[in-house]
């Protein structure tokens, strides 16, 4: 992960000395990692009682939510990496990321109760 730090956001000119885009990119990576951990715990918990149809469906939902989060994160990371003055995060994407998290919690509630 630290290898990403060395690279400039968009080549030499006008490079931000505070490395703000890089830091934001790494924050997205960390968050994706946290989402992975939560989704893996969810999938494991769904398949806990053996591979029933409901368990497989639950873990598939967890996987899809993780995939959704990954897409949002990947899109944002690419924007941050390729533009010199990155635009503001679109509220749609922020909402999508948060809703993936909420849906994971709803999925967990269904599994727990």
């Amino acid at each position, binding site marked *: 992960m630290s290898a990403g730090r060395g690279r400039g956001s968009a080549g030499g000119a006008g490079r*931000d000395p*505070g490395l*703000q*885009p890089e*830091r*934001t990119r790494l*924050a*997205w990576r*960390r*968050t994706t990692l*946290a*989402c992975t*951990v*939560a989704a893996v*715990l*969810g999938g*494991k*918990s769904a398949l*806990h009682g053996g591979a029933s149809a409901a368990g497989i469906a639950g873990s598939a939902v967890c996987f899809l939510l993780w995939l959704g989060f990954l897409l949002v994160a990947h899109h944002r990371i690419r924007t941050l990496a390729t533009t010199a*003055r*990155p*635009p*503001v*995060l*679109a*509220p*749609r994407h*922020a*909402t999508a*990321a*948060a*809703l993936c*998290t*909420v849906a*994971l*919690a*709803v999925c*967990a*509630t269904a*599994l*727990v*109760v």
Partner: protein
Amino acid sequence: MIDFVRNVRLWFAPQRIREEGGTPDYRFSLANERTFLAWLRTALALIGGGFAVDQFLPDLRWGWRVGLALALLASGVLCALRAVNHWVRCERAMRRGEDLPVSRFPTVLSLAVAVVALAMVVVVLVGWAG
């Protein structure tokens, strides 16, 4: 409440934020984004904790296990929703040149986590005694 509904509409409509005020330095927006992500990680950690309580404490009585797990999951949901809301409010405040919004949420979340932790301690002690 009406403020909240207006904020929820802003979650989905990027151009409405852009209509207000001037564009702040992109570094401030990125810092706001990182704060949002940090809150999202907190929410994910709480949800992961909910899964973990359900799965790794199988000896617990049903009521305690489900209660603790649901408390963690509910705080995770609140944390995620609040993360977007706070991000939108901060972004708008920066565009308008206002003070950043203050909030009681960190205190509430800390208290909730403290209560869950205390409940865990009680559960473990009772488990040893019984």
